[in-house]
């Protein structure tokens, strides 16, 4: 008992911190990339070509990320395909990987047909229910009247059955889908981690709860007073977030909700290069060569192009 420190016995004035400031969670993009590269499973933000955490993905690839398991949103394009281009993905939980009106995802399709990638034949329900279970620390989620009529139970070995103890009926069980880290694009955040996503269908909160670590990239860093104007606009509460990275136009070439348009020209360039076997050349030029995020932005058109995309009329 003598050796234990009882803080309640020490007046507050004797315990004042050396620095009364709140601790900032702001780190550099490159540091975030190095952290992500140490992880083995990743959850990412956005839906389709919207709000992709592209800066963080590029930084992680630069930092040598490999052998990753990816739990993407229920649908995604380049935010999944680029990992595959770089050979950094070992396993993919698949619901949809494609470029919508621009066609199939070239690296995904190639890797899938070459069987160089383990694919879990998932779907929207599987991703969402599994993520929700993990978000709540629960081992699985159940569902009925859905998989009974499809081929998923035959193809997805992670989908099992369980007997409902209330009805006695057999229902399907989706396992908790935890990740080591969630990487999320938002439009605004403060340095303490309070983050606002201004659009989309909000798959991010459960993705973050299901992850052991959360890293946010924000188009803009705002004051906490700005955040506190309306707490309901904070879609990721500060205490959930471990690190914040300032990455203006960090979702490029995808849309950033209510901020800037997707860069169709760049996406077409990516697709054309990858469809012609030049994915390494793309990566060398746009992922590995730029020494930082600003250089990347210059490379894809600089301020002129970014302002064009901000008009949201550029496509």
């Amino acid at each position, binding site marked *: 008992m003598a050796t234990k420190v009882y803080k309640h016995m020490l007046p507050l004035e004797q315990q004042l911190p050396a620095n009364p400031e709140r601790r900032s969670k702001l780190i550099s993009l490159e540091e975030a990339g190095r952290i992500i590269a140490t992880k083995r499973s990743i959850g990412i933000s956005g839906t389709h070509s919207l709000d992709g955490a592209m800066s963080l993905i590029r930084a992680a690839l630069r930092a040598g990320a490999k052998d990753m398991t990816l739990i993407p949103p229920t649908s995604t394009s380049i935010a999944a395909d680029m990992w595959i281009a770089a050979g950094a993905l070992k396993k993919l939980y698949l619901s949809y990987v494609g470029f919508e009106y621009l066609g199939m995802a070239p690296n995904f399709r190639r890797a899938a047909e070459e069987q160089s990638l383990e694919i879990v034949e998932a*779907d929207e329900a599987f991703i969402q229910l599994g993520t929700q279970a993990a978000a709540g620390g629960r081992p699985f989620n159940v569902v009925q009247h859905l998989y009974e009529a499809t081929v998923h139970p035959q193809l997805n070995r992670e989908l099992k059955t369980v007997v409902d103890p209330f009805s006695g009926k057999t229902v399907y069980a989706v396992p908790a889908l935890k990740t080591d880290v969630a990487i999320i694009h938002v439009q605004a955040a403060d340095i303490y981690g309070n983050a606002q996503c201004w659009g*989309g269908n*909000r798959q991010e909160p459960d993705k973050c709860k299901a992850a052991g670590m959360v890293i946010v990239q924000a188009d803009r860093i705002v004051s906490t007073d700005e955040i506190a104007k309306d707490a309901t606009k904070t879609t990721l509460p500060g205490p959930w977030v471990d690190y914040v990275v300032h990455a203006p136009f960090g979702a490029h070439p995808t849309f950033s909700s209510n901020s800037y348009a997707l860069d169709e020209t760049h996406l077409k360039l990516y697709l054309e290069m990858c469809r012609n076997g030049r994915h390494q050349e793309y990566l060398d030029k746009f992922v590995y060569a730029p020494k930082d995020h600003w250089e990347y932005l210059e490379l894809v058109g600089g301020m002129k192009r970014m302002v064009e995309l901000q008009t949201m009329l550029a496509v």
Partner: protein
Amino acid sequence: MAGKQVTPGTDRYSMAELMAVIMARAMAGEDERRGGGGANAIIPLAAGRLAQITVSPNLWLTTGGAGSINGVFDTLPIGTWDPRCDYHAECKNYMMDTVDGAIRGRKYTGGRLNWASISGLGGIQVDKYGNTNMIGIGDHPKLKVRGPGTIGTIWQGSGATSNYTEHHSRRIFVEKVAYRSGAGWVDGWDSRHKLLDGRDGPPYCWTPICVCDFTEEEHRMRLVSVHPGYTVDDVVSNTGFELVIEGEVPQTTPPTDWELQVLRTRVDRGGRLRTRRMTVGE
């Protein structure tokens, strides 16, 4: 019809415009249901918006990726995940709301909280019972053709959701899908009702050359109308299974001038549907 056509239609309207118009008509009076649909489904999105401003003032226009309900636009977004779907929206539809509502199914909610009446669920294969395949072709996992993943086709199981494709060929319309990733009427007859708690399957199938529904007993695909410029023979020769054909099959009523005017000035000012790529017989 001579071989492959990439942007079918007439001088007066594109086939994408015709499809938006006729699907809007089919939503007339829809109430508390939701139009909208899949990522790439701008034609059902246009149809939903067109229906909402004309024949279905109570329709809740929902767009998936943008997560919005009743967004206001007169220039068609590039997809249902385009954040411009979200402008001036009244409320949000989060992905978990989609999942929860779809699993509950229409039966338990009296039509409330449900998915699209026409949701634009296509597939790389569609069969005579309206089942769809987004997984691929070949011996899983060694697929010869890898599909993009099954995404929302799983929700075909939740309630009556029409089939919809932008391509009509024997490659797509097959006797039996290689992998049933989206459940239509399953194996026909009462097979779907048995597996899915009595929930109905697709009411219609919309394609660039025709409209089909499903027969009352077997729930097999039946040709209902053929779009202008095509014949019953065109449909039959581009379909890999035997369609039910009962008597004379009428021509699909073409878009009226008024319909096209509303569509082009209040839904698709940018003319995105004029150049939409669709294929027949590819």
